């Protein structure tokens, strides 16, 4: 969907992005992760030409972005920022309708799209459409921000630390909604985050950046199993990296076939993370949990030893 090739960008002599090559596949969710100043936000802002690259090229759906006028390019990409930036003088529905109106859609289609999106992000249209942003909670505002970014049916959604400013329970709710939305719409998402948990939960692919360089790409399980450099290992927890690895793996990845014996407690879902399984084992004082259903449909079990299997 979007391909960065040999991208360099400097600000006043300091290299913010240094020779980055990255391919984001159509329909995937790629998380750009790294510490502050690693160049991840800069890379994102190069994608929709809020910044222009010094060297290298960016291809969006096969075309070089420098051949697409910035305004047109941005309307084809959704954009969500941490501070949301809803227009305070417009109602929720007017905010969501921003890009469709810029694109000149007929009003009936806009109304339908707004209602559809409010529903998609989990805000009942009847309750929220006519309200103003200052009448919403922070989490609701960001839901509107996501709906607004999706309104023009973008091919790519750019998100710059979208859930950084909300409290952890709200953040998890927003992350769940985002995953559900992606499943339903199939939109390609490029997301910037410095939150390790968020990256592992959301990222189909991780792209780890440090001091402007791309250090490693891969699925969360791959990156956490074999961090390419010390910097990657440090970012994902240093000595606690192993615990974060449990977040990246599912029960189904490690459980084995076997008949649960009685008295082993509630079966756990194969989709649950190993972290959740470990938490239950610790809480319930067991070293084995029954698993509801493996990929082949058969019941299984998960032993404590399965967690540490290489």
């Amino acid at each position: 969907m979007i391909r960065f090739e040999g991208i360099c960008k400097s600000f006043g002599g300091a290299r913010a992005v240094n020779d980055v090559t990255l391919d984001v596949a159509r329909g995937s969710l790629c998380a750009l992760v790294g510490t502050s100043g690693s160049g991840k936000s800069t890379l994102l802002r190069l994608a929709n030409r809020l910044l222009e690259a010094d060297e290298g090229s960016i291809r969006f759906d096969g075309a070089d972005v420098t051949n697409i006028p910035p305004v047109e390019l941005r309307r084809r990409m959704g954009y969500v920022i941490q501070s949301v930036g809803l227009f305070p003088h417009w109602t929720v529905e007017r905010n969501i309708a921003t890009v469709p109106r810029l694109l000149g859609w007929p009003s009936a289609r806009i109304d339908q799209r707004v209602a559809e999106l409010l529903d998609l992000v989990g805000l009942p249209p009847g309750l929220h459409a006519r309200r103003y942003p200052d009448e919403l909670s922070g989490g609701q505002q960001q839901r509107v921000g996501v709906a607004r970014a999706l309104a023009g049916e973008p091919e790519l959604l750019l998100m710059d630390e979208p859930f950084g400013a909300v409290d952890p329970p709200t953040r998890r709710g927003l992350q769940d909604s985002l995953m559900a939305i992606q499943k339903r719409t199939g939109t390609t998402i490029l997301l910037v985050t410095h939150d390790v948990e968020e990256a592992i939960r959301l990222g189909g692919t991780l792209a780890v950046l440090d001091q402007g360089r791309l250090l490693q790409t891969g699925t969360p399980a791959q990156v956490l199993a074999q961090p390419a450099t010390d910097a990657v290992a440090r970012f994902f927890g240093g000595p606690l990296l192993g615990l974060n690895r449990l977040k990246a793996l599912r029960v189904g990845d490690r459980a084995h076939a076997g008949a649960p014996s009685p008295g082993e407690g509630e079966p756990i879902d194969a989709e649950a993370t190993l972290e959740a399984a470990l938490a239950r084992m610790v809480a319930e004082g067991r070293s084995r949990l029954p698993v509801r259903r493996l990929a082949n449909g058969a019941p299984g079990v998960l032993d404590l030893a399965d967690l540490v299997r290489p």
Partner: protein
Amino acid sequence: MRIPAGREPAPALRAGTDIDVLPLLISALALAALLLGGFVVVAPNRLLSGSPLSLWQAAGPGGAASLLAILGVIALLAARPALRLQRVLISLAAGALMLLSLALAGMAASEQAVAAGRLTRVSLGAGFWTLFVAGLLLLADGAEREPRRAGKALPLLATLLGLAALIASGRLAHLSLAREYAVRQQAYLDELLRHLQLTGAGLALALVAGGAIGLLAYRRPQRAGPVFAVLNIVQTIPSLALFALLIGPLTVLTGLFPALRQLGIAGIGPFPAILALGLYGLLPVARGVHAGLSAVPPAVVEAARGMGMTGGQIVRHTLIPLALPTLLQTLRLTLVQLIGLAVLAALIGAGGLGTFIFQGLGQTAADLVLLGALSAIALALIADTALRGLALFLLRRPAP
């Protein structure tokens, strides 16, 4: 551990339950001044100074009693905070106070004209002015604090209509002020128009140049400091000096390039006056535009850009609407300031309402001074009220 409960506020301090002090105070002051000062001043002719007539002498027992009754009503209303239309009623009573004082003064002037002859001049005295200004203050206070828009506008409109009717009825025609106006009706209209033209042109200049400077300062924050430093210096030049300072350079300029005279450029007259007014408006406009734009959250502009708004759309859809409260306030303050300053334009031969003030000063004809000064004040008040109304209208949040 038990946390001690906070103390309840004393009942008298609770909002909405205490007596409204301001109207009481204003009407008490009006009453005091009325009993002490002269209501009107009667002079044998236009230039001699006169002797004061008390309200009782000027308006008779009936007139005096009705004015006192209105003051009493205002005091009573002020003591009834629970009344639903309290503020509107106080404002209406204040308007009635102004109109009745004016009518009584006008009637006194007519009586004197009949009794003492055409040369006699009846001017408005300290007692009248205290009453009139008290009414004006109460009206302004009511318009400021009344929450409903209709409640703000109604007393103002009623008073203005009453004033127009009073003037049209001819009851004020024997007041010295009206006679000063009557002998120079055409000149008055010309100078009033000239005053509006000077103010309008100066304001336009200030808006265009100041707006551009404010926009530049917003776009290039590192240049804002020096730009505002220069504008601050312009602002510190005394206003009269600025008018005078332009005479020299402009005269030299037109001496060097006589062709400029064809364009109306000269050391005296309207051109330097407009230039000076524009220079004075520059700082408030530039500052207002800069402050208004800077108050727009950067995240909103960033989001607008990221969603593919063009530069013009960002200005139209985000910057202007979000800066609008500050921009309207800037417009109002600058306009009121320039209406006042334009009085000085008469000193460099540009005309305007200042003409009457400086003529009156020269002739020691106080009522001629008053004619110019009152007109300028009225213009400023009308502009202020109109722009406040416009702001209320433009800034209302559309009902869902």
